[in-house]
């Protein structure tokens, strides 16, 4: 039996629990920068239509008496880790899906879903004065869907025999694993429910979607092939993006931020012993159009200067001279524990030693304690609130789809 635990409006709930003045009020958690977006809103704010991804001004327009709170990353990661540690006492098979969501495999633990849900919910409430919703079912998909049934502070259990009836209660657009584009494509074909999908048949779905067709057909039956993934899967890419404090119009200013982003990407790669050979850059203009491009280099690297130099080449190719609102840099085609000769010595410098020294100082005294001089003009890293996709353990698999 699989259990899914999902925190209710996590960041907002922590803020409300921390500050009695915010309790019962519509609040929105944002990053610390002026041009940031709503990361989480409280249930009171959601009633006014305040949604994740809205700008601060859109949110205040929807609810003028909204309390806007700057997110406190370390507080949330601490709470998340404590909850994760508690889940590990119930079963060793815990998959930390995101900062506020986890799957547990109860097989062999002796706990019923009801018992486990009660233990989790009371721990979360007692320790942090916040609530979570729990769903359980024979697989991850059903457990995840069940979590949303009695949200917030709910519990819903789906016995094996009721799975088909349970999934038939949802529209395809509300299915976990069926995105907006796919559900739109189905809608254009007149397919709205899992029953419609089953009627279409596996063969036709495979014709349309290849191997994914089988997955979709199984999903329509409430079946899910993957179990708990308690080993953190290897990262496919490491990326950072930032909405700039103000629109920038010069290559020089962009170069400062690209260096900062390159350093953030490469230090994370080095910390987790990753090297990569594809460097991507994303540029978002003030009209919100986003352009991305990548370059593959002939060797694997985790060196800031390699990532930065390549990122600047990519930037020069895609920038059309318009004012820039957001920049992103990412490293992909990753390998682990790769010794890259190019890191060791080029231009007569021993870069490996330089990065080792930088990393150990930053590890001891805090990030960006030692950095590049040209980054003095940039805003300090850590100013923004973390993405809910952050995982309490190991690397986060970051792609542009998640970050933007």
């Amino acid at each position, binding site marked *: 039996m699989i259990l899914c635990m999902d925190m209710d409006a996590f960041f907002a709930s922590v803020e409300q629990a*921390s*500050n*009695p*003045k915010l309790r019962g009020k519509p609040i929105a958690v944002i990053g610390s920068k002026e041009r940031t977006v709503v990361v989480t809103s409280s249930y009171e704010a959601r009633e006014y239509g305040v949604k994740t991804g809205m700008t601060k001004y859109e949110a205040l327009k929807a609810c003028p008496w909204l309390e806007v709170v700057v997110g406190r990353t*370390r507080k949330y990661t601490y*709470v998340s880790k404590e909850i994760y540690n508690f889940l590990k006492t119930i079963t060793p098979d815990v998959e930390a899906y995101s900062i506020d969501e986890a799957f547990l495999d109860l097989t062999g633990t002796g706990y019923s879903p009801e018992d486990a849900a009660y233990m989790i919910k009371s721990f979360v409430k007692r320790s942090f004065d916040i609530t979570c919703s729990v769903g359980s079912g024979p697989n991850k998909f059903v457990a995840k869907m069940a979590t949303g049934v009695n949200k917030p502070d709910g519990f819903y259990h789906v016995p094996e025999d009721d799975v088909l009836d349970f999934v038939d209660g949802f529209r395809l657009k509300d299915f976990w694993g069926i995105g907006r584009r796919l559900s739109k494509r189905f809608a254009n074909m007149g397919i709205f429910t899992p029953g419609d999908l089953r009627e279409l048949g596996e063969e036709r779905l495979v014709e349309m979607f290849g191997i994914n067709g089988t997955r979709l057909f199984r999903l329509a039956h409430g079946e899910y092939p993957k179990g708990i993934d308690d080993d953190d899967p290897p990262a496919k890419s490491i990326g950072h993006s930032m909405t700039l404090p103000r629109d920038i119009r010069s290559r020089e200013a962009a170069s400062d931020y690209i260096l900062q982003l390159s350093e953030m990407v490469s230090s994370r790669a080095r910390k987790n012993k990753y090297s990569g050979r594809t460097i991507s850059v994303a540029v978002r203009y003030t009209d919100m159009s986003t352009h991305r491009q990548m370059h593959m280099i002939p060797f694997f690297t985790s060196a800031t200067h390699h990532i930065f130099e390549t990122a600047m080449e990519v930037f020069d190719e895609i920038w059309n001279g318009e004012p820039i609102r957001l920049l992103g840099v990412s490293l992909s085609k990753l390998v682990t524990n790769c010794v890259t000769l190019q890191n060791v010595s080029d231009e007569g410098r021993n870069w490996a030693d330089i990065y080792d020294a930088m990393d150990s100082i930053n590890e001891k*005294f*805090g990030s960006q304690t030692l950095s590049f001089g040209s980054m003095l003009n940039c805003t300090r890293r850590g100013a923004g609130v973390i993405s809910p996709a952050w995982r309490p353990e190991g690397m986060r698999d970051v792609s542009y789809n998640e970050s933007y």
Partner: protein
Amino acid sequence: MILNLNEKIRVGAVFEGHWPKPVWFGLHGEKVLIKEICYRWKEREGGDMRYKFTVSDGFNIFEILFSTMDMCWYLVAMDEQ
């Protein structure tokens, strides 16, 4: 309104278990009695483990921290009524 202060303060605290429990602190010559510890969490700033608290005297909300690096207490911010 939130005031960011970051000033060193005197705190009366009970040390038991893993967490210190602040009971009162001095603010501008006044003794502020802590009526409620609203929240507590840990943060690591390089080698410094900091125990952070949001506390209330019944009127205002304060954020205080205990730094294990210099073994001192700090008033990080206060949210005035």
